[in-house]
């Protein structure tokens, strides 16, 4: 979690904010009231690795697989979010599928 938090501060916090709520109408919230699904995890990996396809949307973030796993685990277990940890091996499978 500590590693993930540091990655979040360096790469994500400006847009998604310290409380994960983003900025209404501009940057999406990362806080979910329901359990986070595998599809949402896949979407997060996709966004971090390749960015959004929308004009002016999120740009890819240059992170290693381990760093992606760390930051996703931090996001998915902060601000009330609860999800079992994603391992680098699981993440590699998501990236390569």
């Amino acid at each position, binding site marked *: 979690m500590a590693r993930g938090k*540091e990655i979040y*501060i*360096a*790469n994500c*916090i*400006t847009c998604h904010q*310290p409380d994960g709520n983003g*900025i209404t109408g*501009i940057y999406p919230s990362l806080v979910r009231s329901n359990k986070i699904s595998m599809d949402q995890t896949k979407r997060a990996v996709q966004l971090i690795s390749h960015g959004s396809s929308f004009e002016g949307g999120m740009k890819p973030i240059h992170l290693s697989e381990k760093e992606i796993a760390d930051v996703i685990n931090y996001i998915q277990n902060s601000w009330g979010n609860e999800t079992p940890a994603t391992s680098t091996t699981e993440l590699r499978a998501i990236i390569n599928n």
Partner: protein
Amino acid sequence: MGHYSLKINNKIYPVHIEHDTPLLWVLRDKLKLYGTKYGCGIAQCGACTVHVEGIPMRSCSIPIDSIGDKSITTIEGLSKQSNHPIQIAWEEEDVPQCGYCQSGQIMSAAALLERIPNPTDKQIERAMKGNICRCGTYSRIQNAIKSAAKKINGLHDE
């Protein structure tokens, strides 16, 4: 348009500006605080880094309307006489080459030492990853942060 009272470097600045104006534009164009630099405009390079409530953030991508009463520190307010341990280490290690990225680098480094007073190499790399230096002065940046950490923690080089 909106009226805002911005708390910057422990001073209050009244500003009348469009709600979605990025903080960087307010700092530079309205308040003439030119120390914070425009690099990419999309929060990808770190040149515009300032502290918002002590957290390093890219001012190019923060709309002024979202600031509220949060306290902002720019490079001009980091220390009274440019003598923050990071700034001293920056000079001692002769870090900058072209110098364009350095105010952003210094702000990220200072915030790192607030969070982690004695960071490892990995922790420095992780924290500074969002700050790009086109001159490639990364090893000097790393040395300066380690040197500043030693000073802050009262340690000395052998």
